[in-house]
């Protein structure tokens, strides 16, 4: 399977995603240049983390106008898998691929930590290999990760099982202190109504090696492999 990883000016986790796909998963990966209009036959698109366009204007707001995003949107519309991580989640929201928005962390500071998230829905192409309610240890590193949306949107996301990950404590409980950024309802990741675009603030590609403290992110990538190949 071929993963296309978009490099925007200011992306800085493109390399980490590339290595997770090639070294850990053993799959093919290509970097997709933001000025191009070619997905190079990629089966899965990753919008990586970083500071596209320096976060100027508003996080993700300029990147969504990059030439490559037209093809990414078409790929998503056709049901192709898109994984937006951190800045990629912000871009996906700005591009209208996902509902809601990501605002400045409630405490106004950048937060870098290994947080715990609970898998809320295992019936997706990204979470098939996890157990429902399983608690994962995944790093976050962001200044603008507070997920917000209108109440009715949040309710709909909940009722449709589209809240995929939630910040929790070590015991798996949703608590205010386990929420690193003040996200509504501790939401860490959501999926679109078609089930093919996942956005999350934590970095699964940084949780792919026991040496680095966690390999809980590996199954997210493997899930895509099994579901999409099948």
């Amino acid at each position: 399977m071929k993963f296309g990883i978009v490099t925007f000016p200011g992306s800085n986790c493109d390399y980490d995603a590339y290595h997770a796909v090639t070294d850990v998963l053993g799959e093919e990966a290509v970097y997709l240049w933001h000025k191009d209009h070619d997905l190079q036959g990629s089966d899965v698109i990753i919008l990586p983390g970083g500071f596209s366009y320096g976060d100027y204007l508003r996080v993700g707001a300029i990147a969504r106008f990059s030439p490559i995003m037209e093809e990414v949107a078409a790929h998503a519309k056709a049901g192709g898998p898109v994984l937006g991580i951190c800045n990629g989640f912000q871009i996906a929201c700005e591009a209208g691929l996902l509902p809601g928005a990501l605002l400045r962390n409630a405490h106004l500071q950048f937060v870098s930590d290994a947080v715990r998230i609970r898998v809320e829905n295992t019936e997706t192409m990204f979470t098939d290999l996890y157990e429902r309610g399983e608690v994962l240890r995944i790093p976050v590193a962001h200044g603008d990760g507070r997920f917000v949306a209108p109440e009715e949107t949040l309710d709909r996301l909940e009722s449709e099982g589209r809240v995929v990950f939630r910040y929790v404590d070590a015991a798996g409980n949703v608590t205010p202190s386990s929420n690193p950024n003040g996200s509504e309802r501790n939401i860490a990741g959501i999926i679109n109504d078609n089930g093919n675009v996942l956005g999350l603030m934590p970095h699964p590609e940084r949780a792919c090696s026991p040496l680095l403290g966690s390999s809980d992110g590996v199954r997210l990538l493997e899930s895509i492999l099994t579901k999409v190949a099948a």
Partner: protein
Amino acid sequence: MSQVDPRPGDPAITPALVAEHGLTADEFDRLTHMLGRKPTFTELGIVSALWSEHCSYKHSRPVLKTLPTTAPYVLQGPGENAGVISIGDGIAVAFKIESHNHPSAVEPYQGAATGVGGILRDVFTMGARPIAMLNSLRFGSLDDARVRYLFSGVVKGIGDYGNCVGIPTVAGEIVFDPAYEKNPLVNAMCVGVMHEEDLIRAKAEGVGNPIMAVGARTGRDGIHGASFASEDLSEASDAKRPRIQVGDPFTEKLLLEASLELIKSGHIVAIQDMGAAGLTSSSAEMAERGDVGVTIDVTKVPTRESGMTPYEILLSESQERMLVVAKKGHEDAVREILTKWDLTAAVIGEVISEPVYRVTEGVRVVAEFPGSRLVTDCPTYSPTARESAEIADLRAVDPSSIPELAEERDHCWTLERLLSAPSIASKTWAYRQYDSTVRTNTVIGPGGDAAVLRVRGTNKAIAVKTDCNGRYVYLDPRVGGRIAVAEAARNVACTGARPMAITNCLNFGNPTRPEVFFQFKEAVAGMGEACRALGTPVTGGNVSLYNESPLGAVYPTPVIGMVGLIDDISHITRAFFQHDGDTVLLLGEMSGELGGSEYLATIHGEVVGAPPSCDVERERAVIDALLESIQAGAISSAHDCSDGGLAITLAECCIANRDCESGAEIDLSRFGNLADRAILFAETQGRIVVSSNVPDRVMEIATRHGVPCVLIGRVRRHSGMLEITLPRSSVRASLDRLRSAYHDAIPAIMSRTPEHATFDELSQVAAH
């Protein structure tokens, strides 16, 4: 030589103008003599920057020459943008530390941010991809609102810049002491890796090759930053805020990628950051290294605003700019790479055979210096060095003459006070603002003895750390200099790494004062002794003098940035206790030296006594014994004894990692020759607390290295207590209380600033 006339509109050269440029009468005479005529305004500006302390090292160079700089694996020693060592497998590590103290004292956010940007460029101009940032910070007491403003601004500046560029900030140290009240120290270190064949030097070569300005445009910011950094801070320093540069990490990220692509492309012969003194120093230094002439036309330099004079263009310290010597005929290829990254590149000059450094404004020559004398003719000074009698008296105080406080009868009280002292307490408040895991190499991040990063494509890892105890250096600069190196070495060794080489950032006061120059000379001598004994040459660094405010000089603070090599990632060792039932051992001696300790400073408010002695041969033996034990698989955890002494080390082994806490049962009753408080809180050097499930093996190895090794207790994973038996008393401390003292101290102090205050609101606090 060309005819050089004063440029219409430029000010006349008067003694007042010369003085304003920081040149002494003698230096001005030298300049006139070199030129054979009076300098122009532009020339005066150039010389003022290049002969500033910051660029010329005029007071420090003769002393620095005494440091060891070679080893078979050193590929690049001092004199380049960064030092480079080989770690085998064709992989090299480039690293360098630099200060940004003066700008940070006036404008903490931009001062710290541009410090990070500058050191990043120093590393990637060598052809290395940056993989880690460290920083060594010193502030006054956090009880002061302005200090809290400086601390939060510096941390935010470091975080915002490094996070955006995508380089993890993995380690460092933060110390709070009134000695740094008005003059904080902000030292940033960058580490990069490369294939040895990609190493490139900043040496202009090839007559006819074009010189190109690359990256951001040149503006009026930061003019005379180098000179500003070469004078004492005063009440008037705030007025020099415009001399502080403004950083743009987004442009830096683009410049990083473009520069590495340029170096790989083979289209260029040299590249250098336009850092301190901007275009002037980068072009003059590249010409001097290559022993060639250069000519630069300032009208070709892309500027941000119109009407900039040659003087301004040459001395601007606008950030995110590079000077490149391209191969003739490859100009378009260079432009193409920069354009890909939405950056500009312009030919602004040429390498010439005539031995001159020439600047023109169109056809008019506005500055011209013979050969490389602009760099080489800078005078050096060896001022008088004399120890301050006042400090000698402080050193002579016997710490045991200071009576214990009544509260100290409960050692837990003292222990908790020390754990919550901001210099010892957990710095998570700051580290949480730094992305420490981007690039997915960070095996041990902030909070360990040293940070550890895996090296992709190999089975190796590198350990990195900065260290310096300024209080020791203040009380005895020779010993303090030795300790700074030894402690850094011990710290990287605790992770399983062999100490390889250092970079240093020497932060001192005004060198023209004999007592300051004494500290400088002695500290460097001590560092040299330790470097030689430990086999860790100096590959470069930075000197920051004039760290003085109206309150006086800072503690002399020679910060050491150490790089160590772990040959096999399976040897990576953690600082905190790992397994229930492991035996706890102490490597090294117990001698009860309380002088210069955190205990005396925090509990008694005294900075007195001789700092702990430091025998560099013993330090080497301890490190050798530890590394052999680690490589034999005999060590579960290893933690260096430093600030706060053995009691703090043991407490940190128990509680430093919130996800892996352990209790411990320790027996120190055998040390009846020492006072109980000295056993707990003395900062005797050369000691490491290890835990092991094969203690006999560790004992055997230590004995073979001639290192004292005693069994002092056992890890009790679930006891929830740190229990220490002493000759005359005991400590029973619950981990809950220790944890709270250690982890909550700094957040509690920082929350005194309104929690949701914006940085601008904080700035208003600062103005008062």
